[in-house]
């Protein structure tokens, strides 16, 4: 059992130094910006929480936030079940297992902007193969002006890009389930579906919660892939919170607004993630019966 020893903090110093360099100082700068406005020629002027109020009342923020929540929920609903199914389908032993691991892992290895490029090339009306195929089925697919086509292409890109993460996590979770549970279910005459529902899924709970937490965080920050694929268009259909953030911060030079927006945005992520973290850790403590080692 672990020893209680406050000197353990000494081990943490290197990590804290590196992280505080990267976390605290920039965070303080952002907080600094969020409570001031930079007026050309006048320098910084204290504005208190005005920026925060502007953001909260700004309809484009509320629009972006609802679209973002919708997008995050949708991709989780698709990726988690699909990831589990793929993990179930993956071979367990021998070279096929290695081949499956490497191929399924590929999308995770590609820089996010290259993902954007590939899908852009893949779906452009002039050179892409997707429009060409849809055309054969008599559907005019055009990512540039049809909001539906654009939205679903962005969703499919994200599914293509991140389902492997859930699949790999679920795959390692499946390997931790002792075979005795499947043997017992076979003896009890359970169908394949009943066995999944009563043996497999409950024991994947831990791994899936981590997957969902990671996927939620990353989906909330998605920006570069979409900006390369659809640039947020057509109109605002595929423009989410980070898109608004970059435009206001980099483009419009309303730095106070952007700083306030990012702090609100950061706050939302932390609150939701903390809820997941609590669920996750007390899920861990009500430890389901693992195989006891003699």
């Amino acid at each position, binding site marked *: 059992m*672990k020893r209680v020893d*406050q000197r*353990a903090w000494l*081990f*943490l110093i*290197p*990590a804290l130094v*590196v*992280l505080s*360099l*990267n*976390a605290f100082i*920039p*965070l303080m700068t*952002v907080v600094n910006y969020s409570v001031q406005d930079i007026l050309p020629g006048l320098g910084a002027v204290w504005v208190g929480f005005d920026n925060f109020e502007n953001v909260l009342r700004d309809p484009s923020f509320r629009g972006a936030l609802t679209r973002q929540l919708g997008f995050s929920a949708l991709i989780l609903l698709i990726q988690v079940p*699909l990831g589990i*199914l*793929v993990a*179930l*389908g*993956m071979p*367990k032993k021998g070279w096929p297992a290695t081949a499956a*691991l*490497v191929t399924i892992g*590929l999308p995770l*290895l*590609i*820089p*996010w*902007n*290259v993902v954007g*490029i*590939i*899908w852009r090339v*893949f779906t452009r009306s002039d*050179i*892409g193969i997707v429009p060409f195929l849809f055309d054969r089925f008599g559907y005019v697919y055009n990512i540039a002006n049809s909001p539906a086509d654009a939205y679903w292409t962005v969703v499919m890109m994200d599914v*293509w890009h991140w389902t492997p993460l859930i699949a790999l996590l679920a795959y*390692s*979770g499946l*390997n*931790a389930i002792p075979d005795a549970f499947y043997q017992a279910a076979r003896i009890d005459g359970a169908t394949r579906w009943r066995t999944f529902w009563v043996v497999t899924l409950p024991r994947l709970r*831990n791994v899936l*919660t981590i997957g969902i937490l990671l996927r939620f*965080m990353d989906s*909330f920050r998605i920006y*570069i892939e979409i900006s*390369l694929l659809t640039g947020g268009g057509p109109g605002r259909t595929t423009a989410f919170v*980070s898109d608004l*953030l970059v435009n206001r*911060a980099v483009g419009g030079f309303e*730095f106070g607004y952007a*700083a306030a927006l*990012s702090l609100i*945005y950061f706050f939302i*992520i*932390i609150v939701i*993630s903390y809820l997941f*973290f609590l669920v*996750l850790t007390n899920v861990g403590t009500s430890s389901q019966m693992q195989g006891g080692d003699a």
Partner: protein
Amino acid sequence: MRRVFTPRNVLMAVYLIFLAAPLLWMLSMSFKPNAEILETRALFPQTPTLENYAEIFTQPAWRESFVNSLIYVAMNVVITLIVAIPAAYAFSRYTFRGDRHLFFWLLTNRMAPGAVFLLPFFQLYSNIGLFDTHLAVALAHTLFSVPLAIWILEGFMSGIPMEIDETAYVDGYSFPRFFYRIFMPLIGPGIGVAAFFSFLFSWVELLFARTLTSTAAKPIVVQLSRSLGAEGWDWGVIAAAGVLMIVPGALLIYFVRDYLAKGFALGRV
């Protein structure tokens, strides 16, 4: 006859096609001259050419940025491990005030929305004179790779019973000698998996890499997007660069496959 078209095999086949199609399309593009890319849509290139790859390997800009990326990714992995191993040891061996919440704070760093932090990072690294150096990008990336590395290593370390530490102390081992000769070899797999995920993140990250560099340490990801910027995009070269960027990652995933297959210690949570 073993049924081949079981629902499981069909689903896997469909998924693999969905997964491979864009990649194969990119691969085939990397062997086509620009002209052919724009006109035809055949999967197999009619006039296969290696000019796109040649472009990359001959152009100093491409080669240098590829090397730059590898340098700062390697530095990030090394710094992450040096910093994460002792921290993970503390979390796995001791309970101390605020350890759980500290762990959550570490995770929250990973969630910081990149976009707006660019300017502060830019100012910070310029002030400390690290702008446009590999170290700058490596250090910035540790903000994201250290928390995950600590989490993975802590899982592996908790798998090693405390009695091994104590037996070593009873045998007379000093802490450093114990850590080096007995403990480190035992968490080898953990180090491999942590290194893999640190590499994975740092290799594909764009925002910080672009912000903190200009010419001397220009990474491949920036070189890629730069050639995007110019209007007449040189699709063939971009596709070739995309293909080349997958190779290091694929190799690394090959090396850590056993640990992934065995299920790295998710029991931690």
